[in-house]
């Protein structure tokens, strides 16, 4: 089972990303759960969202402790302590404009998702790009499923542009590697 934790601020769409990822797994004929964390904090506060993905039905709903992927929609949310929450071969995927800060950490991958989004939708909305990036660095979800799934969660007007974001962020890593 793959376990993923998303870090974002309210309004950044971390949970939407988790839902798209879950829906994409369904298209991939996998099973998944997507669930938010809830707290008293409001819009603007740091929040988390979660995915579990597996090839068989997931019936364990308890908290995720060790993660395969930690995804930060914003590098200000990241702290190096979080690396402790990764499984041995886990990866932290960070949206950042300053990748150099993270260069020394083999468990960290970075992408400037804001830039990609800004170019395409004129807003620094990083969630879709982070999905593209995930598809790129992992075998657990396919880009095509993500593209299909994201249409369900985004208004038609945004859908087309999001396909672009997904593609571009996906390509980002394909280029890097």
């Amino acid at each position, binding site marked *: 089972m793959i376990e993923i934790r998303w870090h974002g*601020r309210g309004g950044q769409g971390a949970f939407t990303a988790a839902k798209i990822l879950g829906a994409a797994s369904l298209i991939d004929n996998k099973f998944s759960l997507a669930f938010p964390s809830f707290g008293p*904090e409001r819009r*603007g*506060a*740091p929040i988390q969202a979660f995915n579990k993905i597996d090839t068989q039905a997931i019936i364990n709903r308890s908290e995720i402790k060790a993660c395969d992927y930690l995804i930060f929609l914003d*590098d*200000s*949310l*990241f702290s190096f302590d979080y690396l402790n929450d990764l499984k041995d071969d886990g990866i932290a995927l960070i949206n950042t404009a300053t990748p150099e800060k993270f260069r020394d950490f083999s468990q960290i991958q970075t992408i400037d998702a804001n830039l990609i989004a800004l170019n395409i939708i004129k807003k620094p909305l990083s969630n879709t790009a982070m999905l593209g990036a995930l598809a790129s660095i992992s075998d657990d979800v396919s880009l095509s499923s993500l593209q299909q799934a994201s249409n369900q969660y985004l208004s038609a007007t945004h859908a087309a542009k999001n396909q672009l974001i997904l593609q571009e962020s996906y390509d980002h890593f394909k280029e890097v590697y």
Partner: protein
Amino acid sequence: MSKPYLRHYQKPQKLSDYPLGTASEAGYLVTKNCGWRNERPIIVTSECINCLQCYLYCPDGVIFKTADGLDIDYDFCKGCGICEKVCPKQAIKMEVETND
């Protein structure tokens, strides 16, 4: 001047550390709100006429009076930008927050 302030908090270690009922010390803060901020308000002292509009309208009450003007409690400022908007002199600038 008094206000709720940040305490060093340790999670109760034993049952008797919990209060009776649901009654605990008023104004007891254990986490900051600075992590919410994307932008940080900066008061440009030179432009400020001390009209106190920002002080009055801040939803979080984090702008406070000092001997020589105003200051901001960045531990609890959420960066909403209302102070910038209500300032008649554009004496508050919002600067993008970095996590350094």
